[in-house]
Structure formats: structure tokens, C-alpha cells
């Protein structure tokens, strides 16, 4: 851990806020992506069944 001196609060909070926000948007994107992939796979399976059946 580097010595941050009297500005430790500002520096640490900046890194904390940034990482939290970035993690937020990354996780949100991943979650939306996964959900959409599942939903699409389900409907596509149904669609191909309909064609085969």
C-alpha cells in the first residue's frame, strides 16, 4: 500500500467510486447479455421445433 498522506480519502474514494461504477456497467451489460442470450435460445429452440414438428 503506497503512502497517500493527507489525501488518502480523496484518492481511495476516487478509485473506489470509479471501480464501483465500471463494475456496475460491466456487470449490468453481462447480465443483460446473458439474459437475452437465454431468452433467444429458448425461443429459437421453440421455433426450430415448430419447423421440424
Amino acid at each position, binding site marked *: 500500500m503506497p503512502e497517500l498522506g493527507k489525501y488518502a480519502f*480523496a484518492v481511495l474514494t476516487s478509485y473506489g467510486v*470509479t471501480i464501483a461504477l465500471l463494475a456496475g456497467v460491466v456487470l449490468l451489460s453481462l447480465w443483460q447479455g446473458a439474459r437475452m442470450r437465454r431468452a433467444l435460445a429458448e425461443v429459437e429452440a421453440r421455433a426450430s421445433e415448430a419447423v421440424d414438428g
Partner: protein
Amino acid sequence: MSIWEYANPKKFMQTSAWALPWVTGLTVLCLGVGLVWGFFFTPDDYKQGSTVKIMFLHVPAAMMAINAWVMMLVTSLIWVIRRHHVSALAAKAAAPVGLTFTLIALATGALWGQPMWGTWWAWDPRLTSFLILALFYLGYIALWNAVENPDTAADLTSVLCVVGSVFALLSRYAVKFWNQGLHQDSTILKVGEKDPLDPAFYQPLVVCIFGFIFLFLALVLLRTRTEIRARRLSALVSRERLA
């Protein structure tokens, strides 16, 4: 072989599926190296002390916040002119990422300003412009969400993006004018106009900037893929309903 081939959703899905892991890898590499370097292995600035470490977050985020809007403007124009769906969806996918970068730039700016300028918030031209930029992002995203028909939404948001760009530029100069006009503000320290940057800060900063660029690319690719899937899903569902 031209760039317009990527306007075909299928082609885009193939290429992006190939590119996404690479871009993600580069993101992790650059951001990891840059941030660890910036946080642990940079000296304190003689004037600003350890707060100089905030620069490695603040500057790239601010750059990409503006670049993301420019990218949305370009993709919106491509949609209006050539009507490639992937382009419109990419603009839609980029907006929340750009908003996040804007918020990061604002938050880190406030945290940096508190010890340096003695205030969390100054109505400094740059800060004010970014606040306005955040409002533009919010309005853009809200309009996408409010319109049900996807093509209508793409058209309307494109028009908004073009008009918004003009007004964002205007606001930028208006805000500069406004603050220089009457209230001289001595607390302003312009980020871009510092004394030449020491290599010890410059090198990790460049790595971080590349990290943010790759992060933006990776997120836009990922989110555009999601949007394309969403489009296909709604097409399949409506076909099922017809059958």
C-alpha cells in the same frame, strides 16, 4: 470487402464474437497494468501530493465520455444516411457506457477538487459542461426507452443526437463565456493546461487511456450483440404470434 459489410447483423455477430475476447483481454491488460502502475508505483506530485493518482481515472474517463458521444453522433448519422440497423443499435449500446464515464469524470473531479481547490464543486466551465453532457446522455437514453417501435426510436434519437451535439458545443462555449464574463474564479486549475507532464505520470496515463478505450470498445461490442439478439428475439416472437 468494405466496412459496410459489418452492417450485416450476421457478419457483425461473427466478427464481434471473434473480436470480443481479444478486446476484453486488452482491456484487462491495459487497465490492470495502468491502474496498478498509477496507484502503487507513481511518485507524489510536488504540488498536488498523492491526489495526482486520481488523474489516471479522471482524464481517461473524461476523454472517453466525449469520444463516446462523438461515436454516437457518427453512428447516428450512418443510421440516418444509410439505414444500417447495427449502427443505430451501436449508438444505443454506447449511451449508458458514455454516461458512466461522464459520472466517473464528475465524481473523481469533485473528489480531486475538494483537497485541491477547497471545494467539492466549482462552477468551472469544464465541470459545468460535463454536467450538461450528463443531462444530454440522460435525455438520449430516456428517449430510447420511451419509444416502443425500435425504428422510430432509432430515428428520433438520431435526430436528437445530431441536434444535441450542436447544442452541446454551443453550451460548451456559452459556459466558458459565462464564467469568464463576470466571475473571475481563481480556484480553477485546468487539467489540460498543466506544466509538461513528467514521464513518471505520462506513461501510466497513456496505458490507462488505452485501457479505457478498449473497455469502451468491449462494452459497446457486448451491448450491441445484446441489442441485436433482442431485435432477433422480438422478430421471432412476433412471427410465432402470427403463426
